[in-house]
């Protein structure tokens, strides 16, 4: 058997939250490509249907269920539907999240609701899904939880209070999962760098990756092999850890001063 055979996910059921678009969609397609059956969830049904069609076009199986991860009863229903369709869950990817209202506001301007929604979306949602799915994953004989954090889970920025607190909370939530359910369940993190999803305004906002050490932004498809790796038997001893896919950003920094070289980079000279 070659080491590459361990990447096969045939017979596994993977739940991906936030699978309607962006990174969640790319990861769902990659997991399906590796052989897993998919449960796709988010709030916007039309986007889920599109992802489901893409999975099926590639020869995979997909069930979509709309759900709001901030609402625990909605999450419990989603997990129960997944079980009644497939009978088991082996992989959970907690990817739903992102910017919420109030992100970027300075502390004294943040409303209670903005703080709550931000934490619910980027931290509590992963708790709801893990709490509902873990008994099923254990029943299936163990499996994998993959939580999507961010560079902001490890570092902060001025006037970024809500998102950075939630994503850092997700990092330690993952470590607690890792300590609690080892060796049956491995819980790890993906920390994407800057992924604009082909959105020109976002790319421009991030200066097209000029300040990222590699000089470019990420492509959604690059998350695919990483999520498959973490869902696969290749990472059986990896637990409570993050893989940061960010073109070198966190090795120095994403800002110009973050990696100020002692000699100019080729581009500057």
């Amino acid at each position: 058997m070659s080491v590459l055979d361990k990447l096969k996910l045939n017979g596994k059921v993977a739940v991906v939250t936030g699978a309607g678009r962006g990174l969640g969609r790319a990861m769902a397609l990659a997991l399906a490509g590796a052989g897993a059956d998919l449960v796709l969830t988010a709030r916007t049904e039309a986007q889920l249907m599109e992802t489901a069609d893409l999975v099926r076009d590639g020869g995979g199986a997909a069930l979509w269920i709309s759900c709001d991860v901030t609402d625990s009863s909605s999450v419990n229903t989603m997990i129960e539907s997944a079980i009644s369709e497939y009978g088991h869950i082996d992989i959970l990817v907690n990817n739903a999240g992102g910017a919420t209202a109030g992100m970027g506001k300075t502390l004294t301007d943040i409303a209670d609701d903005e703080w709550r929604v931000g934490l619910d979306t980027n931290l509590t949602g992963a708790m709801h899904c893990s709490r509902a799915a873990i008994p099923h994953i254990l029943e299936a004989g163990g499996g994998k939880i993959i939580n999507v954090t961010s560079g902001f889970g490890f570092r902060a920025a001025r006037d970024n209070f809500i998102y950075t607190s939630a994503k850092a909370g997700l990092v330690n939530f993952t470590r607690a999962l890792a300590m609690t359910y080892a060796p049956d369940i491995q819980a790890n993190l993906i920390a994407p760098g800057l992924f604009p999803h082909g959105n020109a305004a976002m790319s421009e906002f991030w200066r097209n990756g000029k300040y990222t050490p590699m000089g470019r932004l990420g492509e959604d498809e690059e998350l695919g092999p990483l999520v498959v790796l973490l869902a696969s038997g290749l990472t059986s001893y990896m637990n409570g850890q993050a893989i940061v896919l960010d073109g070198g950003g966190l090795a120095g920094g994403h800002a110009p001063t973050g990696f100020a070289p002692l000699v100019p980079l080729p581009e500057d000279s």
Partner: protein
Amino acid sequence: MRDKFSLDGKRALVIGASNAIGRAIAVALAEAGADVAVATTTPLKDEETAANSCANEIWALDRKGFAQAIEAADEADVNALIERTVAELGGIELLVNAHDLPFAKPAPETDFAEWRRVIDVNLGGPFLACRAAGQRMLSDGHPGGSIINVASVLGERGLANGAAYCSAQAGVLNLTRALALEWARGGVRVNAIGAGWTEGMAMAGDDESRAKLERYLPYKRLARPDEIAGIAVYLASDVSAYLTGQVVWVEGGALSHV
């Protein structure tokens, strides 16, 4: 997905093939399709034997490769090894620094010569190999170069009687980050694998200290070398083209504990 991870056509050099992790990585890279040269660095009389038996496994997989024993902290030896790799395999895209000089001693009893030896081999060795292979990869001018330094949890956590060893390991982590930034736009990626306590690892000590370790590990067991090697295949492959300057920890959750 299997095809995307494939290392077909890549040429690799693994330094440290006489230790369990280095050997497992060398074999995994070959299984994934790379040609793999292996070098051993242990000053044991069976060093050649260890390298040869690893090379035999690589040949059995129908991959090209050769075995050589070197002094890891010797510039001329390391440079010659990289040159031989390029000459015999036709180039070099992958370098793995997996050699390791175990050392544990109370600091008051540690001679400065011992300190220097540990730093020279465990930190200087990877620097020399990165420098020589990096020069080659950067001048080849095509993306796809990937360097993997194998470090240990002792680069992140301190250990009594480990002053020299822990310092060298920590150095490897930041060597990795610094080179990654320097070469990010040159098509050469530099990452580290932070290995946890692994079967066959000399620092894990005798049976008694191993048993003690196992009690505290979240998995209640050490890692198997092949469980470390899986990450090396990912980091070596072009599927991780956007990943550089990172330490990927494979330690079963040991570092998550307070």
